[in-house]
């Protein structure tokens, strides 16, 4: 194909991924997507991992600048620390896209998996399954940006449907998270045996709640709605009689691909738009069973909207092979 500059000579293009979070399946899959798209483009990718150290992440942007990269993908982080760093990169003539962190800059496209949409899809399904009034338990840890955004939707739903009674709120990020959440969920369910719906908008939370529900023998009574998905989640949802009935997710690998594509468009002088949104997919237990989906690959094959997002794909853009 005819490649626009600078991709006519992609080996000379250097891009950097500067990460805030890296531990866990989501982030690993995201990285895989970034790598895949970078390979498809043939560009040189460097990965900087700050391991949840926001100050270090800002330094790493500076490092990338010093290294003379052409473009930077910023993956998560704090607005306050990344805003100035991103501006420094722009000042150095480097193109920047940001994933899931608002750097408050018009020149920087925001790639998002819409957390609000994720929560909305899951909750709509909950209402569809359980009606507009039910007793709910909610798993939440404030202070974590995506969880906070999902929480906004939850708050709106509670206003909209006064029949939803929130009987228990708990949550922890003590690792192993699923294990710690299971302990909490067991206590919460013992104290509030009337709960029928658990909203756990993060798959580690949902996993923990499921363990507790199973251990308490409340599998038939409680339904779990969550966000995010992984191969392990799929098998947990498909266990016979599993309480985990639905999750809403974007494919992190797809988000990774989209991030790189948006950056490539900038480098080629095109505009991907300020908000590059990767739409989420609702994944229900029923769909998984009906189509016999066992892992993420099959999920992509059988739910095509999950394996590819038609976002930031100009005609010249080479896509990773499937």
């Amino acid at each position, binding site marked *: 194909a005819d490649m626009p500059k600078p991709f006519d000579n992609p080996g000379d293009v250097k891009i950097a991924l500067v990460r805030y979070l*890296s*531990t*866990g*399946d989501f982030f*690993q*899959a995201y990285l895989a997507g970034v790598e895949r798209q970078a390979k498809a483009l043939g560009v040189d990718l460097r990965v900087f991992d700050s391991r949840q150290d926001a100050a270090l992440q800002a330094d790493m942007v500076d490092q990338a600048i010093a290294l003379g990269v052409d473009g930077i993908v910023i993956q998560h982080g704090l607005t306050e620390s990344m805003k100035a760093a991103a501006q420094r990169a722009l000042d150095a003539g480097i193109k920047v896209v940001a994933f899931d962190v608002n750097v408050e800059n018009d020149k920087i496209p925001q790639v998002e998996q819409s957390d609000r949409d994720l929560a909305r899809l899951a909750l709509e399904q909950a209402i569809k399954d359980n009606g507009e009034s039910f007793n709910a338990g909610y798993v939440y*840890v*404030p202070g974590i940006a995506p969880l906070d955004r999902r929480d906004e939707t939850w708050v709106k739903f509670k206003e909209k449907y006064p029949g939803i009674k929130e009987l*228990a*709120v*708990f*949550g*922890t990020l*003590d*690792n*192993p*998270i*699923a*294990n*710690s959440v*299971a*302990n*909490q969920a*067991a*206590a*919460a369910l*013992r*104290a*509030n*045996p009337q709960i029928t719906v658990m909203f756990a908008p993060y798959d580690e939370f949902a*996993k923990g709640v499921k*363990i507790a529900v*199973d*251990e*308490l*023998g409340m599998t038939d009574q409680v339904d779990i709605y969550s966000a995010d998905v*992984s*191969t*392990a989640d*799929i*098998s*947990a949802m498909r266990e016979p009689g599993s309480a985990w009935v639905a999750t809403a997710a974007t494919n992190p690998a797809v988000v990774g691909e989209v991030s790189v594509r948006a950056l490539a468009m900038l480098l080629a002088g095109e505009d991907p738009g300020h908000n590059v949104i990767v739409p989420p997919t609702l994944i229900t237990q029923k769909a998984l069973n009906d189509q016999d989906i*066992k*892992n*993420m*690959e*099959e999920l992509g094959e059988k739910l095509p909207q999950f394996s590819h997002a038609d976002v930031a794909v100009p005609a010249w853009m080479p896509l990773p092979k499937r």
Partner: protein
Amino acid sequence: MSDRADRPAPTTNGPAPSARVGGVPVGGVSGRGDAAIHLAIRYGFLVLLAGLVIFFMASAEGFTSVFSAVFIFQSVAITAILALGVTATLVVGGFDLSIGAVATSSLMASAYVMVVWGLGTVEAVVFCLLLGLLVGFINGVLVVYTRIPDLLATLGMMFVLIGLQRIPTEGRSIATGMTLPDGSTAEGSFTAAFLAIGRHRFDLIEANVLPASVLFMLVMGILIWFFLEYTRYGRVMYAIGSNERAAALAGAPVRRYKIAAYMISGLFASVGGILLAARLGRGDIASGNNLLLDSVAAALIGFAVLGAAKPNAFGTAIGALFVGVLLQGLTMMNVPYYTQDFVKGAVLVIALIFTFSLSHRRER
């Protein structure tokens, strides 16, 4: 500060109170002294625990039931097992910071053996236990032969393990159907027998009450308690913790004992990891830092139980239970998680002030 603030203890009695964890200079048993204080030291912590239970029974709905009790035990089982292991290293005057990482490595290893290699329950369990023993052995050798300070050697080991457990899967968790780095798909799965280790419930009074993990905790707790209190090996381990040189000069093979203590610690941590894997049913990447802190807290709280003022298995178990009751009760009362750490810390500190300052007073 009072004018006598800096008056050191009189020269008459004993050697310098060692600042070492294993050698806290507070009293064990003594015939003299104020009986009330004596009782307070000995039973203060247990009374506090009982008080906590009563408080929650009165104020947290659903706290009062066999099930609730079982859940508390279950929630602390893994922490307690790790804590019991680290107690062994505390007894010989050492410390093991790697237990959290050993547990998560064992979690990953069991998943790897079954899911990726497609082997069975026995292989997975044996592999994990050997892993734990090996790590403990290496820890012990580092501490004993190269004389790297215990905290430092086990900290290094912790980093190594946290890194190591991520390499085979490039940082992904392990689950059936996952794609491996070489592109193939993992076809094995957790065996039913393995999952039962973490999930099976034995009948007790009613059907399906007692979880296997709780049984493991109880059995391992009783074993290590008996070992430390009622075998001469245990006694020699205490002697080593109290005065390594004296124990060596009395003919104890100090190095072997110390290595053995680290191996016990590694073994227990790997059992904890197995239980964790069986409960989660997948190989989750996790640092295990919280496991480390919680089990160390349990082992240290154990110092205060029965006025032992030294690492001891019974106290460790009570310490773990104490934290479990507290967290379970607070969650049941819908207390937000961010206050739970605070309450946990505050109750811990107050309980400790109580016990240690009392036993200190008696000692004078």
